[in-house]
């Protein structure tokens, strides 16, 4: 079936089965592979994208749910918060295998957009749905604080 989808500032048409998770539309139909598959059951956060500005798990969001919404993936992020988050991640060498990191970054942008000066506890709460099997957590925490500081100044 054909669906229209607004993604990273453009409208695309895709032909997928009804009920297809947004994740697989993004990856298999639109070839935007920065968004990752880790569990398929909203338990790891690797598939996190922004829908109308908020982080959601694309593996549990279905093509029918996003007919009018603006979807942004890691390839399409823009703006001050996104920029500072990526810069902080690079500055502190957060990544290891890197597979979870698109999702981590999408969530961190969401957190800092809502809470510009998060405490450790805010970070732990907000980021708890993003698993990292390489356990880069301490650097994720530090990078969010660094981005927050740079956004202030």
């Amino acid at each position, binding site marked *: 079936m054909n669906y229209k989808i607004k993604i990273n500032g453009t409208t695309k048409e895709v032909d997928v089965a009804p009920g297809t998770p947004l994740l697989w539309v993004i990856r298999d139909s639109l070839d935007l592979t920065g968004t990752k598959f880790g*569990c398929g*059951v909203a338990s790891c956060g690797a598939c996190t994208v922004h829908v109308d500005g908020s982080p959601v798990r694309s593996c549990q969001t279905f093509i029918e749910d996003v007919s009018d919404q603006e979807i942004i993936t890691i390839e399409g992020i823009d703006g001050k918060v996104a920029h500072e988050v990526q810069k902080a991640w690079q500055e502190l060498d957060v990544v290891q295998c*890197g597979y979870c990191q698109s999702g981590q970054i999408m969530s961190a942008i969401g957190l800092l957009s809502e809470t510009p000066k998060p405490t450790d506890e805010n970070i732990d709460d907000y980021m708890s749905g993003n698993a990292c099997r390489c356990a880069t957590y301490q650097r994720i925490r530090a990078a969010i604080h660094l981005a927050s500081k740079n956004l202030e100044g």
Partner: protein
Amino acid sequence: MNIKSSRRDFLKGSLATGAMLVIGLNSDGVLAAGTADATLNPFVKISSDGSLTVILKHFEMGQGTSTGLTTLIAEELDVEWDKVQTEFAPADVSKYANLMMGMQGTGGSTSIANSYLQYRKAGAAAREVLIRAAADKWGVAPSDIRIEKGILKAGNKSAHFGEVIAEAAKLTPSAEPTLKKSSDFKLIGNTRIHRKDHISKTNGKAIFALDVKVPGMVYVVILHKPQFGAKLKSFDASKAKNIEGFIDAKALPTNEGVAVYANSTWNALQAREAIVADWDLSKAEMRSSDQMFNDATALLDNPAYSVRGDREEARKGNMSAAKKLDIEFRLPFLAHAPMEPQNCVIEPTKTGVIVHDGCQMPTLVQQMVADILQLKTENVLVNTVYAGGSFGRRANPTSDYVTEAAMAFSLLGGKTPVKLVWSREDDIHAGYFRPLAVHKVSVGLDNQGTIVGWDHRIASKSIMKGTFLEAMAVQNNIDNSSTEGCADTGYEIPSMSVGLSDFITPVTALWWRSVGHSVTGIVMEVTMDMAAKAAGEDPVDFRLKMLPGNTPAQKRMANVLKMAADKADWKKPLPAGWGRGIAVHESFGSFVAEVIEISTKGDDIKIERVVCAVDCGLIINPDVVTAQIESGVGYGLGAAMRNQISFTDGIIDQSNFPDYEPLRIADIGKIDVYQVKSDEAPSGIGEPGVPPSGPALINAIADATGKRVTYLPLSENGVNFA
């Protein structure tokens, strides 16, 4: 992004493109220089614009090897770090073998250890021919030429590398090129250089196997056997025909599963749900976990193999001991659960195939795929891409997921590219687990707190037996990976005897980050702590007594132990309700000690701080070393806290992250890593952070609560985490 560019990059490695200097090994295994079309497989490539590309013989699963290997060559060539590029090597064991393995592959924390001199020499050889070429061109002595930020300079003359590569390619480097003095190092040991993958992994551009797409590709998922040892009798795919995009379903020739093909990942997953299969369970594992543990425990009374010491002596010592401890440890099967579920793409070429894979063992993958597809090994090409973690899982004696992909490719006619995708459920169910292990340790102490008897018995599933590694890794029936870190402990324990029995099950077993040490680190260090307590001594002092410095290993072990204790203010009192535990372990040639502080709130435990001391010899990238220890600590703790693969009637109870819950950000506080400055040869770092983490936590819990838990995971054995 996907397909085309990744294919082009890959082919670039094997196509002649003229103006390029390559430094690599010739067919005699000697370092040589040449142009891109010389028959050299290079470590170093310099193109006409002067830019440097380092060829990586090891894959990158997050452990930082792409940064480490690049550092070694960039150091010798004095280039600007940010401008160096990297490329994964093609599969060619004659040029890219792991010198500690004899095949091309990554594992055992050997990447830097085996490449250290090889890569530095390749960089030094490149430096030498570039300088000699410039010297000839300018009519000056080579000793008058220096390299600054990748530019050759002499007096007022200067040139980038690209300007002399044609001449350099005609020169023969000396067999033993002069290496830089360590006092001149700018990159080795530098704390400020970034990982080579720090940008591409923060903007979505890094390519993993799951991101590879080639024209005409179909997607395949496997309906796997429900129990280990089960065989497919028949299946019915009639309902799958109603699923959009479904292409076909075929039984694997091994009868261990059904390959389900569709035009997208999602449609393939949906079609799999619609297939009904009938299995022959006559040879299947049907036991539940309790039964398996009881069966393994029963093997401990009379160990099949004597690994160390004389059991009768150890028991005699125990009989006369003033104090006795009898401890039983039960450690479950564990899945590796790398963040990227296993997958790969097989694409036909004119003469064979290309396997696109986060490939940990190119030599094995080549052989396995060649075997299944009846190809010459050299016609199986491997395009190595980033791997989303591995922790040992992608290095598999049977290359299991690649083999499945090759069978699926062949079943479809061998002309259509296929992408095999595992779901997380496949990953959790597919086996090759850290083996289940039961240890019984009987320790006797005299009145001075000296250990006078240590009777240690192990039952575990052997990883190596039945694989092609058996001949190498099993001696006198003893699989070293079941006993490493125990029978060869660095502690001075003259009365120690160790016996081993193999626990037999069709459940497949594999090395899991730190292999045997992931078990023995826990057993040894919890036992030490309990023995210290029984002796009424401080756990650090007690251990130091058994590390008198008789061997270099004892000295290094004692050193990190003291360093960790010191940095953690070991003797300083903690707030009420807090506890502190310590552990130290040697693995892969490296020594790591960890102190863990926990707090308790009611029944709930929270990990507040981890202090680590590491001695891994000479450190190439200090920040990568720190990151690997942080990672190892987290990996070990997450598993000890809550992970297990358990069985009910032979069926695995877990299926995905909700019931194989990974460590989360809120689970862990600060981790401080301290490094020993050393000129010893570089040793492993990807794994050695794991073994001390579990026991340090168990010991901290005992310190805070008085409760000593020796069955894992902790969450299933009476410990709650906040």
